């Protein structure tokens, strides 16, 4: 019985690991740096883009919803800019996160700048 419980726990843990997009980003993509990092104007533009593109699922204040997780947390704040950029570009189509590759690169970096600023405000 213990063995069965351990196996179930292991499978659950592996499944949860797969669901965490932050862990799926290739190292090369995660190492990319944000050309707009710390730019206040880019951060405000990112807030506008977030309201337009992301808030329907992640909530107006990034507090999350039944459909998508909160983005005001340490994981997102500590994630590298390249990691967030890769997630925006590719999404996770099987888990309901769409790709935002149609946004030009500068707009995706603006969103990343805004997401990083969320943690600072906490």
């Amino acid at each position: 019985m213990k063995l069965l419980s351990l196996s179930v726990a292991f499978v659950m843990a592996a499944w949860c690991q797969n669901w965490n997009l932050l862990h799926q980003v290739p190292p090369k993509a995660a190492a990319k740096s944000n050309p707009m990092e710390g730019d206040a104007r880019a951060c405000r533009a990112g807030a506008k883009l977030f309201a337009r593109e992301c808030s329907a699922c992640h909530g107006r204040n990034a507090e999350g919803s039944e459909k998508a997780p909160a983005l005001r947390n340490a994981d997102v704040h500590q994630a590298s800019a390249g990691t967030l950029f890769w997630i925006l570009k590719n999404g996770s189509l099987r888990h309901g996160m769409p790709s935002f590759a149609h946004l030009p690169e500068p707009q995706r970096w603006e969103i990343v700048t805004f997401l990083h600023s969320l943690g600072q405000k906490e």
Partner: protein
Amino acid sequence: MVQRWALILGLGTIMFLPCCWGDEGPFFITYTHQMEEPGNLELATKDVTGKPGNGNRFLGSTTELEYGLKGWWTTEFYLDGQATFRESSLFTGYRWENRFRLLPHEHWINPVLYVEFENINGADKGLLEVVGHDGKNDLIQPNADARTERKREIETKLILSSYFKGWTIAENFIAEKNVRHAPYEFGYTAGVSRPLALAARPDRCNLCPENFQVGAEMYGGLGTHQDFGLGETSHYLAPTIAWTLANGTSFKVSPSFGITGTSAGFLLRFGVSYEIGQFGRAARSLFRK
């Protein structure tokens, strides 16, 4: 009475749902690999007007409901109609399309499979694709005659598209077959577009350059499986521009120029679209206790 209240409730719900940006680009004919976001509903109209040869001026109109079922699956339902000057106005049929994104991640080129069932009549003038030997003669036929022809067709497309340094580049290959008869018909479309600015401005604005996208499309027929090639086919070159307001409503317009003798000389396309964010969730909540 109950139906009236249901209608008022439904319309009221739609009015207060948050909108999103469609971002579907300035194209009328060409598809990219961008899918509808899961749960979002886009309402759109695509209209085309022209005066083919000695025929009467017409207005073909298509109303489009596009819904994101999954991140990799978008479904769309169309209602078609047309009005021809000095003839009549009529409903010409419906179409149901499904698009499936084949690869989960972004690549330098991204394939999408498109499958559509059309149940329209011969008077349809929506011109959402040009295949086979379609040409201006199809648009000249009087409505009274053309409407008697039933077209139940399966249309498939291979959509290939890429984003490169702010540019959207897309190519579609089309194969269409009447389910009862007629040969396989082929067509193509290709498009390229770019927003006027790549970075967004921090303020909410209607006239920011990033709200405008300009591009060009080229589309036409490639004959049938018995007579494949460019002979007696029509082709169009169409510059296009789209403008999205800060509230998400998008307008687009495209003058299309026929470049072969078989083509209609000039067509003007215009459309409006509006996207309702998380429509599926809002609709489900209406039926929950």
